[in-house]
């Protein structure tokens, strides 16, 4: 087994798992790795839309699990970046349509054939969560700097067994952190007692690029693309420092001007 498999999870919904999975997938592929992003949110398929690949779906995860097609047939190749593939969720089935054993088999197969497998986990801690986690060797826990997301992240961390789990703190608002109205990334890391893989600011660009189905990480010139690229490098074991959104003077100025406009 050559590749590494990660589950991107959070417990709480809406904190940015799908956005993170899509952008990390793009960033990893941009670094030259072969990557499959798997949408494990059966019945609430979304990763295809965030990636802008929704029109090209033929087969899905459940088709693979039930042997209606070969795993390769269900993979959608992203034409914008070499090496990125999507395995979409089934939209019409419910979460019980697949079990942990099947999921494990599929993710193992993918990991044997690609460098990195990222599994986008559904919200919650039930069946869908257990499926998504089943085949993954490592975990990326996405949270925001808010009490409910952090509590749920702690709960999830307790359910990941011995897997290595690192944090992505999403939707940080540096100006609020500065005034003490938002927990800082260090606070979050402290409370959860885990290593931080990366942090992403709360940024309109995410919404804009999601609207277009063009993940921000695809455009390497963008500031956020660099943010995701840094995380991707760290996932691959490179010792890259985290860029600090919290005290980048230019970032702050930019925001200040932006917010007054």
């Amino acid at each position, binding site marked *: 087994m050559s590749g590494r498999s990660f589950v991107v999870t959070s417990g709480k919904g809406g904190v940015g798992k799908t956005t993170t999975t899509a952008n990390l997938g793009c960033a990893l592929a941009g670094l030259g790795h072969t990557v499959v992003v798997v949408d494990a949110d059966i019945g609430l398929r979304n990763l295809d839309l965030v990636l802008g690949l929704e029109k090209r779906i033929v087969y899905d995860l459940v088709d693979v699990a039930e042997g209606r097609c070969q795993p390769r047939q269900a993979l959608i190749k992203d034409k914008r970046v070499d090496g990125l593939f999507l395995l979409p969720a089934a939209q019409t089935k419910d979460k019980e349509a697949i079990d942990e054993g099947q999921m494990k088999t599929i993710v193992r197969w993918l990991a044997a054939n690609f460098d990195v497998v990222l599994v986008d986990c559904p919200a919650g801690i039930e069946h869908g969560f257990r499926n998504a986690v089943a085949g993954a060797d490592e975990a990326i826990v996405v949270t925001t700097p808010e009490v409910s997301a*952090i509590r749920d992240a702690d709960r999830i961390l*307790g359910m990941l*067994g*011995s897997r290595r789990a690192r944090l992505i703190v999403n939707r940080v608002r540096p100006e609020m952190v*500065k*005034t*003490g*109205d938002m927990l800082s990334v260090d*606070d979050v890391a402290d*409370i959860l007692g885990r290593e931080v893989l990366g942090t992403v600011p709360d940024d309109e660009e995410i919404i804009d690029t999601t609207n277009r189905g063009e993940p921000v990480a695809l455009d390497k010139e963008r500031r956020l693309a660099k943010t995701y690229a840094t995380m991707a490098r760290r996932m691959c074991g490179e010792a890259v420092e985290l860029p600090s959104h919290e005290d980048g003077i230019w970032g702050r100025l930019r925001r200040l001007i932006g917010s007054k406009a």
Partner: protein
Amino acid sequence: MIEFITKFFRREEASKNLAKERLRLVLMSDRVSLAPDIFETMKVEMLDVIRRYLEVDERALEMRFENAERQFLLLANIPVRSVLPLPRKTTGAGQTAGRNTNGRANGSAISSGDASPPAASASADASAPAEGPHPLPAFGGSAPGPGDDLSSSKELRPAANDAAGSAAAAGPHQTAKLPATVKRRRRRRKKVDAPVVDTAAPSAFGDVAEGPRPPGGS
């Protein structure tokens, strides 16, 4: 900048600090309630230590966690049957020696650290509930029933009415041997402060089974 200045003068507590404190407490209680087996083990280990010094009524023992105002408490209620003969060099068996000892107060090992005078008089005991048969050791989330939180301090004490009658004559397994042990029960609670289960690596709890709701999670 103006924002910053107004924030500076607006002197309410930064909400981030509240968030931190609230999370600290709630995560401790979550972690405990989600890993009942681990604290069952801790209890067994604690008992092993206690047994070296005291003969306790293990059936009546109660230990649980409770969310208090700004603390997360480990509460233990351990009926002592007798204090084993101990080789003694210093006064008392231990830690609370300086506090409010009167000569026979060697119940201190388990003493609540309660500042009120021991008043080992029988009258104080009479007000204390008799040692009734307790429910089995309630632990972690598995314990506190519907009443949780505030009412629980009452739950911990068995009905006071039957105490009135029998307590003077000392409860069932409360043998008259050692008045000091009776005295201890005046406040029948041992409070141990939060750090017992601090925000230690959650991974320590491993793959936790689905546990019952957090205790006192209101």
